[in-house]
């Protein structure tokens, strides 16, 4: 194969077949995909959760991961937030002509590894190569399918006054890493993406505690945006204790330098859990028992004081809104 991706590789002819068999099949191999039929034949039972996502992250390689592993983590996490065991994934690659073959290989290899770790089969896929400039190097679209194992499934509209609000770890690591890498800014050692598949931990959690009301991963828009979505859907007030929200000092320092708020930065390996107060301690114990939830803590309580709003109780004991962000966070002048 050429050392760069050529338009030929998307032609559907021999070049395409070589790319598929030598790269994709080798890394994603499973019995269903290997049949190379026009569609996958799946065995699923009961209620299923389906989620689709497109990954256009810039840069495509970043400390802690790349667009391939991120595509798996993002998708299995979305499915698992429904109290579901992710089983299958699809993936569509849109590649810009000229992408180094070594980069594509790295992405596919790490996507395959992430899928195996998550226990998910990539059962069907598609590869398109488009002329230079038509996309920015590589875009990946995925769809995940999982079997829901709790009834009712956790949902953003199920938060109730009196519920405890828990978070699985520190906020803003992924968002600051992406921004820093994109802009060539060097932060203190230790700032790297938290990109990870949370499905094994989430499934354990809901199996042991089917009382969980809400599970959400605070991805784009961060904790603040996700909390606002939940407050709005459930028509409740989410009161958060500022001092309890975990943020790494290096992330907090980088944000302060750039005029950004870590509570609005994306996370790719964390989740929020809202559940009745009586089960909060048990949930924390389960979360902390897993490497991906070792910094889990309680950050607030659901109330009926200001329905639809998120109120932050500051370290001084004052109250302020934690509003939804309008547009993207932009660095300021002074």
């Amino acid at each position, binding site marked *: 194969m050429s050392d760069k991706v050529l338009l030929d590789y998307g032609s559907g002819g021999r070049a395409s077949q070589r790319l598929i068999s030598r790269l994709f099949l080798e890394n994603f191999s499973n019995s269903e995909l290997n049949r190379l039929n026009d569609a996958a034949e799946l065995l699923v039972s009961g209620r299923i959760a389906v989620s689709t996502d497109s990954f256009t992250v810039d840069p495509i390689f970043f400390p802690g991961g790349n667009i391939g592993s991120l595509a798996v983590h993002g998708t299995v996490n979305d499915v698992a937030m429904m109290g579901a065991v992710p089983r299958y994934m699809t993936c569509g690659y849109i590649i810009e002509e000229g992408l180094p073959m070594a980069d594509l290989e790295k992405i596919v290899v790490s996507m395959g590894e992430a899928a195996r770790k998550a226990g998910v089969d990539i059962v069907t896929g598609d590869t398109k190569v488009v002329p230079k400039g038509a996309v920015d190097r590589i875009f990946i679209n995925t769809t995940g399918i999982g079997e829901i194992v709790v009834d009712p499934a956790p949902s953003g509209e199920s938060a109730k006054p009196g519920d405890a609000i828990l978070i699985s770890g520190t906020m803003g690591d992924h968002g600051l890493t992406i921004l820093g890498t994109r802009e060539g800014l060097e932060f203190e050692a230790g700032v790297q993406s938290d990109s990870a598949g949370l499905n094994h931990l989430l499934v354990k959690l809901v199996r042991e505690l089917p009382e969980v009301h809400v599970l959400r991963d605070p991805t784009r828009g961060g904790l603040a945006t996700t909390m606002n979505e939940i407050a709005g859907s459930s028509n409740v007030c989410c009161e958060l204790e500022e001092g309890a929200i975990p943020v790494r000092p290096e992330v907090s320092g980088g944000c302060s330098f750039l005029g950004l708020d870590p509570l609005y930065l994306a996370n790719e390996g964390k989740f929020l859990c809202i559940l009745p107060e009586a089960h909060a301690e048990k949930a924390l114990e389960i979360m902390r028992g897993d490497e991906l939830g070792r910094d889990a803590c309680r950050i607030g309580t659901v109330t009926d004081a200001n329905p639809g709003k998120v109120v932050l109780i500051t370290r001084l004991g004052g*109250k302020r809104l934690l509003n939804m962000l309008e547009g993207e966070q*932009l*660095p*300021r*002048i002074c």
Partner: protein
Amino acid sequence: MKLLDRFRDPELCKALLGKLEKELEGELRFMEVCGTHTVAIFQSGLRSLLPEGIVHLSGPGCPVCVTHESEVNAFLDLAERDDVIVATFGDLMRVPGHGGRNLKAAQADGARVSVIYSPFDALKIARENPDSKVVFLGVGFETTAPTIAATMTMARNQGLSNFLVLPFHKTVPSALAALMDDTATRIDGFILPGHVSTVIGLDPYKYIATDYGRSAIITGFEPVDILQSLLDMVQWRNRGEAHVTNNYTRAVADKGNAKARQVLYDVFEPADALWRGIGLIPGSGLDIREEWADMDAKRVFGIEITEVPPLPGCKCGQVLKGILSPDQCPLFKKACTPANPVGPCMVSTEGSCAAYYKYKVD
């Protein structure tokens, strides 16, 4: 305990709040000049904790907010030119001009606009695009002007002939005089900006006490800084005194930064400037000196700043002068929201309307 933690210490804040409450006689109307202070007061939750008699006014210290409508129109016109790449800090991207224009919309229509983190980044863009003129939008106060002057010096040293600056800088001290001269404003004292003061020091503010009999304190951005400055002003007033002092000595030298001022004034010279909502303030801006005319976008493109009327219904001018609080503006949270900002005080992350919208619990 880290140094900064001391300035955020909840117990110390509680003690200062108690003292403030005890010593406050009547009302103290204070204005924090700087947008970063506005945000700090809200973000820390301090605003919800201050005694009722402490009346909090947000001042003209957000560089985006005081950029005049005419200047906004000028840079939007510039962005539409085919031969220009506009380089700017992110704050200006959504600032509304007349007819619903802004840089984000211009970018979507094909204008070449680059959001950068340092003016030095614009030099790289200039090097990579030798057939275009790269214009950095010079908006800001004394804080940013020295860096921009240094960037221009570097561009000249590197022989870059396609890097220009559109100079809309403003200087803080004379704007405060204009505010106190306006009979509609009632300000007892100022929390002076920390960043600007690192450059200009204490002297340029001293007239506030000697000529106007008001107090002013250079203040840091942590809750303890702000509370201590408010307490000082209350105590001085109780004693019938007015002073201008520096409470931010950990970052600001009384004499400021002479080197930064030299870099600044090598390239810029004082000029009259238009301030949104306030109008023309003599000597409150910075124009590029004749010797640097080849980098002056105003001269190179023949940009005339002609005064255009304010945006209909927008009360940003009165908000900037502390005459109206954001939630007293009839458009606030109705026609004017962060999604659809009528005026710049709602669009800027440091604008007072945006801060009220974003942080104030009803």
